[in-house]
Every structure is written in C-alpha cells, then in structure tokens.
C-alpha cells in the first residue's frame, strides 16, 4: 500500500530521534453491511477505512499515533509529534536511513476465499438473506426476522525497524439471523450467526435456510421457557459457542497484557496445575478459514497453534511483542488490534477445549439435577480477580440425566480458576463458533469452541426461587 522508501524513511525518522523500535501498520479495510428486516432492506452500507498507526518503543514504554493521512507529510507529521512527545534520550540509530533492508513476507492465501466478492452482485446476497428469513419463520409466533450480512476485506501491511515487512489479506464473511417471537405480552429472541474467513461460499457451508431455522426454533424454545431457577448447581455447557465461558474465565487471564503486570490470577503459574486434568486448552491462529485466523498477526509475526493448558497444567501464555519484552516469554504471534486506531496487545485467535473420547450422553448421565446451557450469549471477566459472568441464549433443566423443560434468563457466574478446576468431564464433540471479543486493543473476530463440558457447580442467576436441590452429582 505504501512504497519501501516512504516506510523506511518514517521508521528511520523515529529511530533517529530516540525510539528503540518503530513499527508502521497500514490498513485498507473495505466493509459492506446489509441489514434486512422482515424481507425489507433496512440498511445497505459500503465503506473504506484507510489509515496508519505508528508505534514506537522506548524501552518498554510505548508511544502510539494514527492518522488517515497517508501522504509523506501526514506520516512524518505523526512521527514528529510522537518523538516530540517522548523527547530525546534513547539510543540513536542511523543505520537504514532512507533504505531499511526489508525481509518481505506475503500471505500464501491459506484462508483465501473460494468465492470472492466479485463473483456475485448485491442482488444475489439479498436473495440468500431472504432464504434465511424464510427459514426462520418456523411458527406464527415469529414476529420479526432480522438478518445481517457482513463482508470484510482487510489488507494490512506491517513494517518495522528490525526489517520486518509483512502483508496480509483477511477476507471474512458472516451471516446473522435474529428472530423475535411473541405470544401475548411475552417476547423472546433467537440468534444464530455463523462466520468464517471465507468469501461467499459461507452460504454453501451454512445454508441460509438452516441458519434461519436454528434462530427461529431457538426463539420458540425461549417463548415456552420458564424463568431459570437461581442457585448453585451442575451445568453442562453446550459445544461450539459454549466455549465462550472458558474464553472469559481462562483465556483472558492468559494474555500477557494482564500477566506481565501480575494483574492476572494466573500470572507466574507456568508448569502448575491450574485446571482439572480433563482440560486441555488451545489457541490456534492457523485453523483453516477460522473466523479468528490470519496468516500473520498485527505485529507482522506468523501466527501459530499455542497449547495453553495441557491436562490441567499451564504450558504457555499468549504473548505479543510488548509482553515478550516485559516477561521474557517467547512471542506467540498473538499481537492483534481492531484496526489502525489501536496499538496491538496480546489477544486470543481461535481458542478451544480439546475433545476427549467420552460420548456426550455420558455427561448427562452424571447429572441428577442441573442446567444444560445449550447456547450462550457473550460475557466478561476481570482478570485481576478472575470473576466472570456470561449470559445464556438457550437453556434446559436436566433431571435424572434427561433434558427436560426449557428455562430462560440464566446468567452463569463465578471465578475462572475455580470453575476450570470444577470441570468434571469433557465430551468428544468439539465444535466452534464465531464471536467478537472486546478488550484494550478493540473488538476482534475470535472463534470460541469446545465439546460439551460438565462443571460440577456454577452460580446460576435466574428469577425463580432456588430449587433447594441437595447433592446433584451422581
């Protein structure tokens, strides 16, 4: 997107004025969004986001600036303003003035779309969304069907004063169907929204009619559901997006952003048993076409598959450049950022609990009374105390190993290290789902995943009185 000599001059300018390390991130991000409500197009938007972020290190102190003005004048202006803020004093390096010898790396197209944007016009997209709408109308009580289609085509360039020059292109497509069911004064919702690092073949991988039907049936289930009983009892968390609980409860605690400042309850615990032996937890940036996959991270480093926890023992953190500098741990290709407006931090990519050989049915047989949280909404965590919470989208009561009536409004909460030590069993049916994860470096596409997981006790916030169940494990 920019010439070598311009990038080189900007980086050299910063180094000459005292920065120990300089990195330029350049991004052109084309985005299209389509929103359809009850078969009518409510919003159709297209745009280009275009800007650059300059990050300078002075020891482990960071200075960051960004701009939409990608001319020589615009880029040198932010370099000047940043170095001016930090003043002189660092090492002065005159090597590479006007000609850093970049080692260039380009993407191999590992996640490249099979059906690119240009293959079909906007009318084609609208027709697919209408199929999803039709699929969602599973009952007369379905009053609203809302569909979204998001198309992202993000080109990035990361170059730094160590000679890194990495280009990457990330094409992502997502189709979301939200339904509202109403019966008298009762209103409930359903949600399903598959997304991958693919082009328009998303519609082949997830036929729109099926996406709609899943969302519609979920809304109908919730309409029939009664308020969830409040209290503390066993929970079986469904597979795929169910993995959000460990994303919140454990994943965020393993990012060096918290770990380096000893602000995570899992700091300094490499080699220690931090979870039930049933838990192996992996963050994999290489998953082919994963929603959170890319070939390089936003610091220009190739992504990798990082085993975080193996049989309950902590093996690795997720480490970005700053985290590596602060902690000495090896960088894991985990530096990510929403866009050019934010400096990267250590973040998750596609994170999941590895499957066992146990059939799902065995997990249910272990529960006398409990909650089956089949589908989740998002959640949040405080790494310093480990406290997390997350909402549920579709839940049922388990009695004597059987899935019985649906319940709604359950909020699951607890402390991450406690919950992960209470994992009794992990099933064999790994699946993943897409989400948007928000943290210091903004909102990022991530996959969460797991097989069905049984936790012996979680606090369930709900509206109905405590069922006063005693021992509930068989």
């Amino acid at each position, binding site marked *: *997107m*920019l010439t070598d*000599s*311009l990038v080189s001059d900007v980086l050299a300018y910063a180094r000459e004025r005292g920065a120990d390390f300089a990195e330029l991130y350049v991004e052109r991000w084309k985005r299209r969004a389509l929103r359809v409500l009850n*078969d*009518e*197009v409510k*919003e*159709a*938007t*297209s*745009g*280009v986001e*275009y800007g650059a972020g300059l990050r300078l290190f002075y020891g482990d*102190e*960071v200075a*960051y*600036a*960004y*701009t*939409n003005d990608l*001319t*020589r004048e615009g880029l040198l202006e*932010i370099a000047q303003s*940043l170095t001016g*803020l930090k003043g002189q004093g660092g090492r002065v390096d005159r090597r590479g003035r006007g000609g850093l010898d970049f080692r260039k790396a380009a993407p191999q197209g590992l996640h490249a779309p099979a059906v690119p944007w240009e293959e079909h016009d*906007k009318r084609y997209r*609208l027709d697919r969304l209408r199929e999803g709408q039709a699929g969602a109308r599973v009952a007369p009580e379905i*009053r609203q069907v*809302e569909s979204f289609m998001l198309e992202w085509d993000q080109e990035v360039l990361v170059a730094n004063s160590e000679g890194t020059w990495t280009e990457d292109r990330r094409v992502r497509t997502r189709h979301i169907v939200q339904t*509202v069911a109403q019966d008298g*004064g009762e*209103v409930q*919702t359903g949600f399903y929204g598959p997304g991958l690092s693919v082009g328009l073949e998303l519609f082949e991988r997830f036929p729109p009619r099926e996406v709609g039907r899943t969302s519609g049936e979920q809304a109908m289930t919730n309409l029939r559901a009664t308020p969830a009983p*409040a209290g503390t009892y066993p929970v079986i968390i469904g597979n795929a997006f169910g993995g959000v609980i460990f994303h919140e409860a454990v994943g965020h605690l393993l990012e060096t952003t918290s770990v380096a*400042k000893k*602000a995570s309850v899992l700091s300094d615990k490499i080699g220690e048993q931090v979870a039930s032996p049933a838990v192996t937890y992996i963050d994999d940036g290489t998953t082919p076409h994963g929603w959170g996959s890319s070939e390089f991270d936003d610091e220009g480093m190739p992504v990798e598959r990082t085993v975080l926890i193996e049989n309950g023992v902590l093996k690795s953190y997720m480490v970005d450049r700053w985290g590596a500098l602060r902690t000495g741990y090896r960088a894991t290709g985990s530096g990510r950022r929403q866009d050019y*407006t934010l*400096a990267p931090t250590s973040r998750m990519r596609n994170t999941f609990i590895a499957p066992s050989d146990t059939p799902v049915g065995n997990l249910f047989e272990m529960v006398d009374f409990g909650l089956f949280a089949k589908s989740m*909404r998002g959640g*949040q965590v*405080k*790494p*310093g*105390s480990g*406290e997390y*919470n*997350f*909402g549920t989208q579709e839940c049922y009561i388990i009695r004597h190993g059987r899935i019985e009536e649906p319940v*709604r*409004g359950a*909020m699951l*909460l607890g*402390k991450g290290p406690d919950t992960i030590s209470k994992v009794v069993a992990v099933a064999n049916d790994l699946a993943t789902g897409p989400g948007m994860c928000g943290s210091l470096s903004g909102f990022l596409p991530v996959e969460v995943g797991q097989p069905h997981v049984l936790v012996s006790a979680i*606090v*369930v*916030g*709900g509206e109905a*009185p*405590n069922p006063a169940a005693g021992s509930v494990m068989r």
Partner: protein
Amino acid sequence: MSETAGDPHGSGRRMTLDEAKRYVLDAARARGIAAEVLGSRARELTARSHQQRIEQITQAVQGGIGVRVVVDGRMGYGYSEELSTAALDWMLNEAIDNAHLQTETDKFLPDGTDVGRHDLVGDGLAAPLESKVRTALGFEGTLREDKRVKQVMFASYTEREGDVTLGSTQGAEGAYRRGVAGVMASVVMQEGESLKQSWDADWVRDIRTLDPAHTALDFTQRTGRLLGARPLQTGRYTAYFEPKAFAQLLAAFWPMWSGRSVREGKSRLAGKRGERIASSLVTLIDDPLLADGLATRPFDAEGEPGRPLTLVDDGVLTNFFTNSETARALALPNTGHAARHYRGVVDISPSNFYVKPGAGIRMDTGVIVAEISGVHAGTNSISGDFSVQALGLWAENGEVVYPVENFAVAGDFLTLLMNISAVDAALKWEFMGRMAVGTPTIAVTDLSFAGV
C-alpha cells in the same frame, strides 16, 4: 507525485472535510440525486501511567465522510476515510448501488436549514501537554496511596475533541466542535485473600474542573469497601442501585424508548403513550442542550436542532426518541435524536439522558448494588429481561453490615420501573461515548438476587 502504491482509488491531494462535503454534494446535484453528507474529524490524546511512568501515549487524528443518498425513494449509504476525488466517487457510486437494492420506496431526506457553526469547546481543553501528562501520573500516584491497591492496571488522562460538519441537497448546513477530558483507571485491590478489580472514569467538559486526586480517593474508597465480601443468600430483597450501576441498566434499556424499536416491533412500550409504565416517582428526561452536559450538541445528525424531551413524566410514558424517518412512520413529532457516525447509518440516540432527582432515600434492609457487570450479555432490551452479575453491600435497618459478592440480580426492567420506591436527590453522570446517563441512587423493592 503520490507515493501510495497500488491504490485502486488513485490518490491526489487530500481534501479538507468541508471540501469533501462540497465535492460530494455537487456531484450528487449534478446527477439529480438527493444526498446528505456528514463529516467528522476526531482528535484524541491519551497518556497512560503505569508504575509512575508514562507507559503509553496516544495521539491521533481520525476522520472521514459519510453519505446517504435517496434515489426514487430508496436509500443507500457509503463512507470513506480516503478524501481523494477517486475514493469519494467510489463511495457515491456504492451508495447509489446500495440504494437500488432497497424495496421500500418511501425513503426521503428531511428538509433542512442552516443551523449555524458552534464551538462548544472554547479553551476548555487548553493546557500544556506536560500538565496533562502530570495529571495521569498524579492520578496513579493517588490511587497507589491506598495500601490495599495491589495493582493499577492503568491510570490515564484522555481528551477527545470532535468536529462535525453536515450538509445536504435539501438545505441542511451546519457544524460544531465539542470535546471532553477525563481520567480513567482500572485497579486491583486486596485485603487478605479477597481481591476486587474495578474500572472507573470521570469526565468533564472543562479541564479546569477535573479533580484527579478526588476521583482517585473516591474510586479506591468505593472499590475498597467491597473487599472481604461474603456470599449473598439467594432471595428477594430491596435493591438500592447506586448511580454507576443504575446508569448501566438505563444505557442497556433506553432502546425501549427508541422510535426505531417501536417501529420495528422491538419495544414493549409500543402503543403505551399516556399509560403509566413506571412508579410515579420516575421522570425520565433527555436534554441535548444541557449546559456542561457531556453529550451536549446543538443539532442532531440530520440537522434538527436539539431541545429537551420528557420521556416519562411522573411514571406516565409521554414520548419516544425519533428522527425524521421514525417520526413520519409513527406520526410523531421529530424530537431531533438522529445519530450517525460517518461509518454507520442514521439511527437514534439519546444525548444527556437522566432520571430526574427525587426527594431522597431512607435506607432500610436490602442490597446496595454498587456495580453490575455482564450488561451486554445479560440484558435484552426487546424482552426486558435482565440477569447481571453484581457486587454490593448488605444493609440492615439502614446500616451497612458487610460487602457481598458473586451474585446475580435479575428481573424484568419494566417491572423494576414499577417497583421503584424511592429516588435519591443527588444526580451523578456517567459518560458512555455517544450519550451521557445521569441518575441518582434508586431503590427498587422485591428484586430477585441469586447467590448461594
């Protein structure tokens, strides 16, 4: 000569926002198309202190231009951060293409007037950089004076200043500048085995009214009192929502008053104007012109001048937030609450949204809800359900007895509004980006708490 390689949009000289606005409006007029252009440029400065060093400093300028067009009653959108003629031409073409996709043919751009140029910042953010950096360092220093503070994740000073310019082929024309400054921090506090992490921020319009030492003391006091918390017994209690907690609920449930939600069948308040929907102690107001308001703006994203709006008057539903489209569709007045970021579409947003202070609260027995979290996942503004994680204090006969933790508070928001039994007299504001929410402490009877 441009140094931008491989640029499909070409490049050329970068225009100013006003030049880009005129360019797009002229191009639309030449093609006989109704268009509205919203441009904005935001400047941000953040200095983040960690262990008494400036760990990160961010300086930024970001801006772009958004267009919406109406072609044969169909509406389409586009935006660009690249202000070259080629990029703006691409944006306008995409917007027209997007418009052709629409089936509804009743779209329109509102007739506008010249609403003037306004400066809401003045010298409100004027101070030497060194003093702003010292503000961040001093803020962290005061936080660390409390021995229970185990870790300051970050403590920062941030200022944001934005220029907005609007114009349309239908006569709308105007501009304003506004800005805020604030301190924010995230701390982990410890006493014995008990750990609590909190995040807080304090924002002002005029930097001279910022008092970081006072904010830091208030912050450590409010987080520190939660240390040593005990589990809460599951049950139904009276809740005393402190302003920080209740503001989050209001911010999650305001879409119930959005004309768009009403129109799209997503508000349970639809059709209830004139009915009692809340305790008679509740009056909800939005005032875009509030002096010193953190979200004050002279006009909305369509150029409609701002004015105060009462949404709930002594418990009776009186109004919904509207923009030009929802006002016409619902046959209601346009309240001037159109909101748009140049990258997005015209929607609706409150500005300075608040609960009118009441006569005061006499505390009895119940749970003082100090903080709630999990709001984005635990609330549903369509169904009205909420179930959120909370931290707080257990009170008996008006006395705080001990802190409580690890529980959830759940219910239905409209039932909660009906069960409000007292509204405190002192209003506190939380700044939430596009909107500011003000509320006193609110007492609610008979709420469900899930603990052990």
